[in-house]
């Protein structure tokens, strides 16, 4: 099944693209998708960065199981500079 990934700010610049459609196995979680994406885009493979996950415009936990055509955004630290932990 396909999911749509949107990248913003530093992640968009690192990957040199703002939108990616990716084929994933049913049952894939959003945290697993991030690891898969890092394999496709080694520039995103940075240890120590803590991201938030958003699916269809709401924050979710890393264990969220992706559905067909979900819109996924990996949220780097927002303008205040300090992340919140979900």
């Amino acid at each position, binding site marked *: 099944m396909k999911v749509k990934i949107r990248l913003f700010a530093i992640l968009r610049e690192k990957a040199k693209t703002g939108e990616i459609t990716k084929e994933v196995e049913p049952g894939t979680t959003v945290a697993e998708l991030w690891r898969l994406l890092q394999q496709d885009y080694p520039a995103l493979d940075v240890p120590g*960065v803590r991201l938030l996950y958003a699916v269809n*415009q*709401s924050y979710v936990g890393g264990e969220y199981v992706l559905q067909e055509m979900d819109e996924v955004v990996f949220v780097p630290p927002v*303008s205040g500079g300090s*992340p919140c932990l979900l």
Partner: protein
Amino acid sequence: MFALTEKPIRIGELLDSVTRPGAGAIVTFIGTTRDHNEGRKVLALSYEAYPGMAEQELERIAVEAKKKWAIEEMAIVHRTGRVDIGQVSVAIAVSAAHREDAFAACRFAIEEIKRKVPIWKKELFEGGELWIGTQSGQRFHTEPGAEVLGRFAPHSK
């Protein structure tokens, strides 16, 4: 009113949008672009937002504030794109019957914006640029010695 805009923020419109007959106070917070940060000479800021979710999160902040304090209305407008020094990057207005609630809710709103609304700030400074929140030494670097995400090489010129 919960909006993103690429144009200068009109404070008058923001105030009009929260004016209510039952309100005895309107408190505002106005964030402006500062010309210095951590020893760097800042030339401008550039904001990027996740459209749709950003406005939705702004509105959620107002919903939460209304549960916590007796406020009449809240409005928030945030700039996107390049914002020059001295310009308004974010404006919040809160009306309430009494000022204590308006002050508290306004403070809450700006802290929540900076915590969870998907808007990112890039600092354009003399000698380079940096996505704020991704510098070395910030809390999200959980692994000692981890490569620093976001430390941009200075411009070559």
